[in-house]
């Protein structure tokens, strides 16, 4: 004999309320759609997922470097190779992210209640810049010495240097391997979930153009159109 389950609608459980709100905002078919509006047919759409892919490579190579410690890559061949992968993944990340941002600008991708999608994407780019900078000053080589002694002046001039000291390797390393990556990953997660929720921005004057077409959607909720970013 089983006890009757509480009515989830009236439940006072915080857990149930969070679940209800989560599922309402992002039902599974929205979160992981298996269909895409036919207008999502351009190479420009690739750069969103490519940005996330590059970020995954950065995190993967960064985790290996973190596991072995900051000096390892200077005196081992495999360490230097992993550092190279980390560096080039960063270069790729910024390249594809910039193309992605330009693409979204020319789509005016903030339309239709998507301003938060734009804002989270733009802030991600801005937070990625100090994330990379803290990596550069954590290299423990001449490049790190020079960048630290130069970057301090700009940061000191606006008072940031009082609590963010680029010549303090320990502090910069903490920012680079934990604090700023957490911020970037959190922002990217929020960005992707917002894309999932609102869908990929449609072309201009979609309503006029779509009228003759008949729906063949696997998902009756059109706002679940978003899959790519």
């Amino acid at each position, binding site marked *: 004999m089983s006890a009757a389950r509480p009515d989830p609608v009236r439940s006072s459980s915080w857990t149930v309320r969070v679940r209800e709100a989560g599922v309402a905002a992002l039902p599974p078919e929205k979160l*992981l759609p*298996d269909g895409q509006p036919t207008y999502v047919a351009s190479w420009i759409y690739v750069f969103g997922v*490519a940005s996330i*892919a590059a970020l995954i490579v950065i995190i993967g190579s960064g985790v290996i470097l973190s596991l072995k410690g900051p000096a390892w890559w200077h005196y081992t061949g495999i360490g230097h190779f992993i550092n190279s992968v980390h560096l080039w993944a960063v270069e790729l990340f910024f390249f594809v992210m910039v193309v992605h941002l330009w693409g979204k600008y020319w789509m005016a991708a903030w*339309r239709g209640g998507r301003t938060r999608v734009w804002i989270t994407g733009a802030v991600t780019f801005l937070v990625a810049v100090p994330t990379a900078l803290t990596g550069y000053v954590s290299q423990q080589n001449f490049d790190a010495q020079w960048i630290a*002694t130069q970057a301090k002046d700009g940061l000191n001039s606006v008072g940031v240097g009082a609590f963010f000291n680029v010549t*303090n390797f320990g502090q910069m390393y903490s920012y680079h391997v934990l604090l700023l990556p957490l911020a970037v990953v959190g922002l990217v997660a929020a960005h992707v979930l917002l894309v999932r929720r609102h869908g990929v921005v449609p072309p201009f004057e979609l309503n006029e153009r779509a009228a003759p077409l008949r729906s063949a*959607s696997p998902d009756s909720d*059109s706002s679940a159109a978003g899959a790519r970013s």
Partner: protein
Amino acid sequence: MSRLSELLAPRDDTQPWKGRYAHYDLVKEASIAVGIMALLAIVLSVLFSSPDDKPSTVAQWSRGTPVNFVTAATLELNGTSPTAEYGPPYNHNAAGQHAWFLRPQKWLAVSHPINTANDFVIDPLRTVSGDPTLRSAVAEYQAAPEKTKKAWGEAYAKPLEEYETAAEEKKTLPKTVTLDSTTDAVSVQVSGAGPVPRMMAGLLSLAQSGGLDGSLLTSKQFFQTDYTKPLLFMSDGGLLTERAEGQHLLGDQWGMMNETGSYPGQTWLWLYTVWYQVEPFKASQNADILVMLVMGLLSLLFICIPFIPIINRLPRWIPIYRLIWKEHYRSLAPTGRSGPSA
């Protein structure tokens, strides 16, 4: 809707999609993307590797260019080096940069206190044992009135600065400063410098032995990760700048976005770097805060693009969207116009 409100909040012409859907495998695409990006990063690593120029040390600096080291150390002792006259967050000897009424450098005060005479010269010298002459020289210097210290320091610094200037301008070097090529010791023919020559000889010897590197780093505790003092001391000398110039890393060489060797650096800082190349920033004593404020404003505008008139209309007016949604518009071509009415 008024024209102004239309500019601030452009008409939302997005409607629920009633058209066709194509099959799409999100997880598969993401997995393939990760594979491709990993492969690209690996191929680039195999082809180009990554730069790793060894760091400079105070020992290298003092051995390679002893006169430059002694000159910089004398300026630290006299309180006239760039670090000594920096202001916050290192000391109160200057107000720091400002823009109009904004003085955040001053407002945030001194958070990493550095007394260049004590931290870079006197305290390290006091760690040297077994040298009574040096110990008495330091004691004599510390006991002297400030006016006397200044006179000693300036007397000793003058021929050194003349030597450095002549070397920089590739002129005949003055004979008041001589370098012993076998011991790398620096001799300065000067009178009225009190104990400063002995102190500087001791500091040079300590630096050349490698002891000053450790002394600057571990002045507070054994485990140390804060390289502020050795980095600031070295940046007051010429070694870092000389190496950076050779690698095109100076500010007027677009150095902020460059990397050692021929590698791409932080190219995403190009807009930050460009301001340092143009007036009024280039010649301004407050260039750093001005550039930071400009970049802060531009960053804010970047975030707020959806709300900025004109900027948020450009994508409608400049039909790049026709390329992006080329297939979509082609599929609809027989039904009417092929672009939005701006």
